């Protein structure tokens, strides 16, 4: 028999600050093209001789991971699994700039060591003294979902009992200037929200979101992760079949879904995918989250935190409602995300 997978703890560092009980009450909609994370104080968590070498991506990851562990009251882990789209960009840029500026001489070790994508997962484990399975997925906009799928299979298969899973992405100078030049990120002078967006590109948001997953539930559990699936390419016309097959595998149908959590990003070229999926659940409440977190390859991790929060609280903060629907008890919440018409993902959460 398959074991289950429960969300026992959540940790977030984002443009809205850290995860807290009044997170959504105080959240303010993002209107800038690059939303930098509000950095908490790291001194209480990370030793001074370590902190001075860490880029913000690593620090955000460590903070969010510790928050998720603290909330769950878990200290023994069977795996640390991380998703990231762009990895430790700050140090990558620093290292490459040194290579160019100094004609491939005078290369210092620190930025090189910490420029790899798996640095965050490694530093989390190093700090915890955790020598268990440690893996980082770099799969574009399904990086987090890939990490989640790995976690789910390990927990459901009985190979692990407690797993720390999450995602991080950070904003850096040069890469984001280029992203703005090619229109992936909105220009600095464009001040649009997801609802008012009239242009291509996204408002990008950096941050980290981590979860403590466990095979056993507790009174404080947020929700159960039932299933996750990813698909690289999908035409809009294939969405219904994609959703139905996913639900069918789990012996469910569309009628059981209480709410949708959609990854609308304000990119008018591709947001029609979300509209199309919404049509399959016309009378159900539709929620969104990237207006609070910003878009990134791992923003969907924050989407899962949003869905988990809603399921646990059994209430929906007004500022995350994309489209109102009929009031029904929140039992199953379906998350859908895609980026630029690729990297489609579905995650199904159930009230625990």
């Amino acid at each position: 028999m398959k074991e289950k997978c429960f969300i026992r703890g959540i940790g977030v560092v984002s443009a809205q600050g850290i995860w807290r009980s009044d997170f959504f009450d105080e959240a303010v909609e993002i209107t800038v093209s690059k939303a930098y994370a509000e950095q908490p104080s790291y001194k209480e968590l990370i030793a001074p001789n370590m902190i001075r070498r860490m880029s913000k991506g690593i620090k955000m990851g460590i903070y969010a991971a510790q928050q998720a562990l603290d909330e769950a009251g878990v200290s023994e882990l069977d795996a640390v699994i991380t998703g990231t789209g762009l990895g430790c960009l700050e140090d990558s840029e620093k290292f490459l700039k040194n290579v160019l500026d100094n004609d491939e001489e005078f290369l210092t070790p620190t930025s090189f060591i910490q420029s790899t994508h798996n640095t965050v997962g490694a530093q989390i484990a190093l700090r915890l003294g955790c020598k268990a399975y440690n893996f980082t997925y770099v799969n574009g906009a399904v990086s987090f979902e890939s990490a989640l799928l790995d976690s789910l299979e390990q927990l459901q298969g009985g190979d692990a009992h407690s797993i720390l899973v999450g995602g991080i992405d950070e904003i850096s100078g040069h890469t984001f200037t280029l992203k703005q030049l090619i229109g992936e990120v909105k220009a600095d002078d464009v001040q649009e929200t997801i609802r008012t967006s009239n242009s291509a590109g996204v408002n990008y948001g950096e941050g980290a979101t981590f979860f403590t997953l466990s095979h056993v539930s507790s009174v404080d559990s947020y929700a159960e992760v039932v299933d996750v699936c990813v698909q690289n390419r999908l035409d809009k016309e294939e969405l219904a079949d994609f959703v139905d097959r996913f639900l069918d595998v789990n012996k469910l149908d569309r009628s059981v879904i209480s709410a949708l959590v959609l990854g609308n990003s304000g990119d008018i070229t591709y947001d029609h995918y979300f509209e199309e999926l919404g049509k399959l659940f016309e009378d159900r409440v539709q929620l969104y989250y990237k207006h609070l977190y910003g878009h990134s390859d791992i923003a969907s991790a924050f989407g899962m935190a949003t869905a988990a929060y809603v399921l646990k609280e059994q209430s929906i903060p007004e500022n995350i409602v994309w489209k109102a629907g009929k009031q029904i008890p929140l039992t199953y919440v379906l998350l859908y995300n895609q980026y630029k018409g690729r990297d489609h993902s579905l995650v199904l959460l159930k009230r625990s």
Partner: protein
Amino acid sequence: MEELKEELKGKIIEVLNLEDIEVSDINDDDSLFGDGLGLDSIDALELIVLLDKGYGIKLSDPKQGKAIFESINTMADFISKNRTK
């Protein structure tokens, strides 16, 4: 020499990102490694690059490093005798 020592302290703080440490917090004869500033082996590599990039000194024998990087005094002394820029 005093000017070089102050310059070195500033560069070390900047290169090693020593948060919360000011130039005035580092004494000329403080140990840079161990009980003093608490630098480690990765910092040693950064200091070797600092000597090369800032003062044109290539350390051919890494064993020299232990004596050179003992304190600001020893570093400044070595730099003033061997600098090429």
